[in-house]
């Protein structure tokens, strides 16, 4: 699983644990880039909406499912990965926007 931290106007960012990494994911062109992320437990995904339209980070995968809500242009959201496994990310507004995250222990 992960711990999600909303960013943007109200950002709550904890210091990364030793050895943890941040993985930026962009939304320009209505695509998650990169579309596949290899991460480890303790890492953080940072989703930045650098597109002109509102997007979203929605995870439909059972046991990982979360919804970070509408993300307007210029805003960022964060997910701290707390459990190994693989999950998918979708934009609620744009069905074609997808990404896959593989989390190793």
């Amino acid at each position, binding site marked *: *699983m*992960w*711990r*999600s*931290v*909303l960013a943007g106007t109200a950002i*709550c960012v904890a210091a990364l644990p030793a050895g943890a990494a941040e993985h930026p994911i962009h939304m320009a062109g209505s695509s998650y880039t990169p579309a596949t992320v290899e991460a480890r437990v303790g890492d953080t995904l940072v989703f930045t909406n650098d597109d002109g339209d509102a997007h*979203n980070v*929605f995870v*439909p*995968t*059972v046991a990982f*499912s*979360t*919804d*970070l*809500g*509408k993300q307007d242009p210029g805003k960022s959201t964060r997910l701290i990965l*707390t*459990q190994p496994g693989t999950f998918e990310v979708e934009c*609620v*507004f*744009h*069905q074609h926007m997808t990404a896959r995250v593989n989390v190793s222990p």
Partner: protein
Amino acid sequence: MRSPVLTGAAGLVLVAAGYASAGPERVAFPNGYDTAWIKYTVVERPDRKIVRNMYVNPEAHAKAKAGEPIPDGTVLIMEDMKVKLDASGNPELGSTGRFVPTGEVIAIFVMEKRHGWGEAVPADERNGDWDYSSFAPDGIVRPNLNTSGCFACHMSRSGERDFTFTYAKVLLDQGKR
């Protein structure tokens, strides 16, 4: 249901302006869903400090998990429930790393599929034969309810997802569709 299957962005977004013939009045409150129905997934919503418990009626699920299309008579529930907060006001994490529900329900969203229901909805806004409603925890329909936002948001999951954000996806991931 953000979701259900429905959620904020991925949920039953309720806004102003509905449909004359369609409408929440034909979607009944599903008494006993929380004890007798199947909770097929839980969606965390950190910005709202809630979880969204997703249920399906067992009769429909029996057909869907056998590989049939999501059948006539399917009812999906999205139950919004508060979660425990830490001293800083952030959601606590349980031993599995997930939010810890308090048991306090704050809203219940329902989407129901009945043959012919879609005919009452304008073609360009129709979600197949689905219709939507929203209830307070006591089962009373929310006042001045309008479900046009539900139709608009769920439109993004037409096709193989059958206008659902989570249910059809769970079936697909389980190889049931």
